[in-house]
C-alpha cells in the first residue's frame, strides 16, 4: 500500500520513545525516498501524456501526489520527533550524551545536537548582562539552603562556592549547598538524604 513503509518508520519510533533513542533508520528512509521518486516519475509521464492529448490521467496524478505529500509528512515527522527526543536528553543528561545514545544518532543529528548545545549556552550566558543564568539548574522550588547527600560513586574532588574542597568518595556523606549539588543528584552521582 502506498506510504506504508513511511508509517512503519513512525510506528517503530513511537514504540521506543520511552526515554531512549532507537537507531537512525537509514535504509527505511532511503526506501521511502525511492518510493517518492517512482511516484513522481510516473506522475511526470502522465502529465506529459496529458499535454500530448491523452485525458483522464488527472485522477492518477492526484492520487500519487497525495501519497507524495503523505510520505514527506511522515519523513519530516520522523526527523522532528527524534530531534525532540535528543533535545529532551540535553536537559536530562547534560551537554555530553552517553556513548550508547550517540551511537544511535546519525551524523547530522550529532551536528544538530552540538549546534543546539552552543545556541542554548550562548542564550543562557546572554541573560541579564552579567554572568547570565543557567536554566538547566533550579528545576524544583528550593526548600532548604543546605541538604545532606551521599555519593553513589567515586567522583573525585569538588570545590564548593565557599572555597573548601570535598572529596566525593563512594558512600561518603556531605552537607552541601542545594544549588551546588542539584545537577550531581540529577546525574545520579549523589543521592539526596531526606529525614
Amino acid at each position, binding site marked *: 500500500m502506498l506510504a506504508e513503509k513511511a508509517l512503519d518508520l513512525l510506528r517503530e519510533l513511537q514504540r521506543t520513545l520511552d526515554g531512549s533513542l532507537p537507531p537512525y533508520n537509514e535504509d527505511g528512509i532511503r526506501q521511502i525516498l525511492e518510493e517518492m521518486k517512482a511516484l513522481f516519475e510516473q506522475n511526470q509521464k502522465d502529465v506529459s501524456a496529458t499535454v500530448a492529448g491523452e485525458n483522464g490521467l488527472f485522477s492518477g496524478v492526484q492520487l500519487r501526489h497525495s501519497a507524495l*505529500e503523505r510520505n514527506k509528512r511522515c519523513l519530516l*515527522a520522523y526527523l522532528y520527533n527524534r530531534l525532540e527526543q535528543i533535545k529532551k536528553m540535553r536537559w536530562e543528561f547534560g551537554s555530553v550524551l552517553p556513548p*550508547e545514545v550517540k551511537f544511535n544518532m546519525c551524523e547530522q543529528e550529532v551536528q544538530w545536537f552540538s549546534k543546539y548545545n552552543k545556541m542554548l549556552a550562548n542564550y543562557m550566558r546572554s541573560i541579564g548582562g552579567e554572568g547570565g543564568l543557567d536554566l538547566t539548574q533550579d528545576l524544583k522550588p528550593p526548600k532548604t539552603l543546605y541538604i545532606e547527600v551521599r555519593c553513589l560513586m567515586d567522583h573525585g574532588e569538588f570545590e564548593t562556592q565557599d572555597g573548601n574542597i570535598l572529596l566525593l568518595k563512594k558512600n561518603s556523606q556531605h552537607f552541601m549547598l542545594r544549588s551546588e549539588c542539584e545537577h550531581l543528584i540529577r546525574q545520579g552521582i549523589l*543521592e539526596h538524604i531526606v529525614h
Partner: protein
Amino acid sequence: MSIDGSNYFDINDILSTQQRLPCKVEMPIYRLGYLDSSSESEHLQPGTKLELPFWMARALCSRKRHIVSVDLPKQYKEGYREIFSADPTMVDLHKLGPYFYNYGSQLLQFELPETPDVAKSLLQTFQGRLRKIMDSSQNCFNEDTSKLVEKLDESERILFKEGQQALNDFQCWETRKTEKLKTSEMVKNHRKRKRVVLEET
C-alpha cells in the same frame, strides 16, 4: 486531538489519519489497479468499492474533486450511534478505532448527509463517558480501572493519565516525597538498560 492547532509533526495525528474508510471509485484511475487487492485489473474502474486510508480519500473527495465518493465507517453510522446514546460508558471505543473522536471529527470534512448527527453523537458520547473516566482516574490503579482503560480511545486515555498523574503528584506532595531531589528519569532508565546489556553479554 492534538493539544495545539493541527500539528503536522504529531505522530498520533498521522496514525489517526491512516485509518481506512469505504470508498467507491467515480472516475477511472489508470495504472493504480494494484490498490484494489480484490481485482487484477491494471486500472481502478468507476464503481469499484474499496477501502482507502483517510489521507488519500481526503485528497480524492472534496468540494473541488470527486474522483471517489466515500461512506462512513460502520462505527460512525446510525446503528452504532444508537448503541452509544443508549449507554456510552459500556462501549469499547479503543476497538472501534483507537482515535475514535479525532478520526470522527476529521470524517466530518466530507460533509455527508449524516455529518450533523455524527458530530452530535461524538459530543454526547464523550460527555457521557467523562464522569467515569474522571472518577476512575482518581482511584488507585487496580484491575477494574485497567479493564476500563482498555475500552478508552487514545484521547480518553490521555485524560485518564492526566487525572492519575495529578492524583499521584498530590499524594507525593502530601507524603513529602517531592522534597527529595531525584535522579532524572532518563538517566535512571539509561542506567537500567546499560546494566541489562552488561548482564547479557
